[in-house]
């Protein structure tokens, strides 16, 4: 409920503030408080370098020049929104692919569906079944079979995530060439514009430059800074220079820890590009944040189940009367009655008291081949005893995975992923709507006719006011119906 509460609260507050602002606008736009307005609008602050209208007025710019300047500001706003929309759209595609890995196919078996939640339940249920007759070989085989399904689905999901990460890495690398070509083109156009039209609109040359900037905005987050004589500098959203006057600065790539990193003038700017927007931002966020997060959760799950089940099985007595002991010469921490292979970091954690679980999911597999090695009996009991099978089955309800039961941990992981997908979907829808609005405005304002401009503005204002009214009504209905802000069963 936190998300919608926050969103509603934010918007409701903004609406209150806007009532006064809209009145001012309606009465006399020219008297608006410019300084305050700039401070209150981060997007506008980002556009501040473009705000050289004052300077150009001082230089005696003509009316045509003013129109060009106006369009550039709107186009930059459009570019900014496009960058955000591109980033969220790219990230959303990657997140949907991730989510599909954890969405069981209806009607298929758990082995092919990748339904890890159901695999966990089946695995511990198999031990519960074994309790009834610990000597039944078919029940023992069922335990190993369900263990294989669980391990197979977890490792398969982890390997699929690694494959998705590699694909995203490749897509991200492929963007660099396009970015460099476009920044080079902008630099060249800067030179031409500055030499042919330093004081006025350069017509088609400026159109070409704007087109390049729009394409660039689809690929990477940028800021645009107008300079003297109709020049333009481009930086990444975090401020690294990509083009200035007639010079462009090339992005380069290099492999760091197995993935592609991005460099500008020798500095690794990968993490800054990830938050910067554009397709590249979307790819990098999915590659460096979303997928590693999911992998880490799977590793935790695999490590918790493997090590807990192995430890419990090794403490019991198998069908031949043996108890688990360390495998001589093993460097992995393996014991003789392990059901699952020890996770890659298990031995080091045992020796050093560490908690590293990296790689546990991808490496998860069943090493036990003889069902007779399942230690259903408790230590000191006969082979017909079932007390250790009971103990292993009860692990399902114990907090063996990062302080949670296995099934709760997995459910929370899937829920969190779903919430992230939903959140990014919401962002993307809103950003696309904003892009549509700005494109409408841009088309309407391409004319220098003041009546058209006034009509376009009026449409935007009227729509906003009508939408505000709808929102307020809906908010009232929702708030009273759901008791928003109050902890209730429905909220």
């Amino acid at each position, binding site marked *: 409920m936190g*998300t*919608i509460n926050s*969103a*509603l609260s*934010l*918007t409701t507050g903004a609406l209150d503030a*806007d009532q006064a*602002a809209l009145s001012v*606008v309606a009465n006399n*736009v*020219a008297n608006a408080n*410019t300084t305050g*307005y700039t401070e209150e*609008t981060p*997007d*506008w602050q980002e556009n501040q370098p473009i*705000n050289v*209208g004052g300077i150009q*007025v001082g230089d*005696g*710019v*003509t009316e045509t020049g*003013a*129109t060009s*300047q*106006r369009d550039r*500001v*709107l186009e930059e706003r459009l570019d900014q929104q496009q960058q955000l929309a591109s980033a969220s759209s790219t990230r959303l595609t990657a997140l949907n692919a991730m989510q599909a890995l954890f969405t069981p196919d209806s009607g298929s078996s758990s082995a092919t569906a990748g339904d890890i939640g159901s695999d966990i339940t089946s695995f511990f249920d198999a031990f519960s079944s074994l309790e009834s007759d610990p000597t039944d070989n078919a029940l023992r085989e069922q335990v190993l079979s369900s263990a294989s399904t669980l391990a197979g689905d977890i490792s398969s999901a982890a390997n699929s995530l690694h494959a998705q990460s590699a694909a995203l890495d490749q897509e991200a690398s492929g963007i660099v060439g396009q970015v460099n070509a476009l920044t080079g083109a902008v630099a060249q156009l800067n030179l031409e514009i500055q030499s042919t039209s330093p004081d006025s609109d350069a017509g088609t040359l400026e159109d070409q430059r704007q087109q390049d900037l729009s394409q660039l905005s689809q690929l990477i987050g940028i800021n645009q800074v107008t300079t003297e004589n109709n020049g333009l500098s481009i930086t990444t959203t975090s401020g690294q220079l990509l083009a200035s006057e007639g010079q462009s600065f090339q992005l380069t790539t290099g492999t760091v820890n197995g993935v592609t990193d991005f460099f500008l003038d020798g500095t690794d700017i990968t993490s800054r590009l990830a938050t910067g927007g554009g397709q590249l931002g979307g790819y990098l966020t999915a590659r460096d944040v979303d997928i590693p997060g999911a992998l880490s959760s799977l590793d935790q799950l695999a490590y918790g189940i493997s090590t807990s089940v192995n430890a419990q099985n090794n403490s019991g007595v198998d069908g031949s009367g043996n108890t688990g002991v360390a495998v001589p010469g093993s460097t992995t921490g393996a014991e003789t009655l392990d059901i699952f292979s020890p996770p890659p970091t298990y031995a080091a954690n045992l020796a050093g008291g560490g908690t590293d679980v990296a790689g546990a999911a991808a490496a998860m597999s069943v090493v036990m081949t003889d069902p007779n090695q399942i230690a259903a009996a408790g230590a000191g009991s006969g082979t017909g005893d079932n007390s250790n099978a009971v103990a292993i089955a009860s692990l399902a309800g114990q907090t063996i995975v990062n302080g949670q039961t296995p099934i709760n941990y997995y459910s929370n992981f899937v829920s969190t992923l779903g919430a992230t997908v*939903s959140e990014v979907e919401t*962002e993307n*829808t*809103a*950003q*696309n*709507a*904003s892009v*549509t*609005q700005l494109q*409408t*405005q841009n088309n309407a304002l391409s004319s220098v006719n*003041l009546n058209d401009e006034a009509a*376009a503005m009026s*449409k*935007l*204002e*009227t*729509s*906003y006011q*009508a*939408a505000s*009214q*709808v*929102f307020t*009504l*809906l*908010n009232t*209905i*929702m708030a*009273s*119906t759901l008791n928003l802000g109050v902890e209730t069963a429905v909220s």
Partner: protein
Amino acid sequence: MLPANPELKELVVEASRALARLDATRLEELAHSCQALTRARNREDPRERGLLAQQAQEAKADMAVFARVLEATRANLKVMNRLRELRAVQLEYTERQARSGAGAEDGHGDH
């Protein structure tokens, strides 16, 4: 067209769409639908109130989208207002330049 008694979720989704395409007329229609819903909410019929509560629950995610679209529109509106302000200042300057230019020419002609 929305049905005679649209569900809350449909209203919210349609509001986002109408705002994205700046369809003020549609938004005003939706405002009327919302007022009708408000009247329904005020009725004492527990079945209708229960139904509305269920619809509100289903519309929560779409309401969040609508809130975001509204915020984006507000930001766009501020940018457009700023542009209009710039435009007004620049036109005023141009007119002043034109007037002073004409005055200078007249003066020149006097000599």
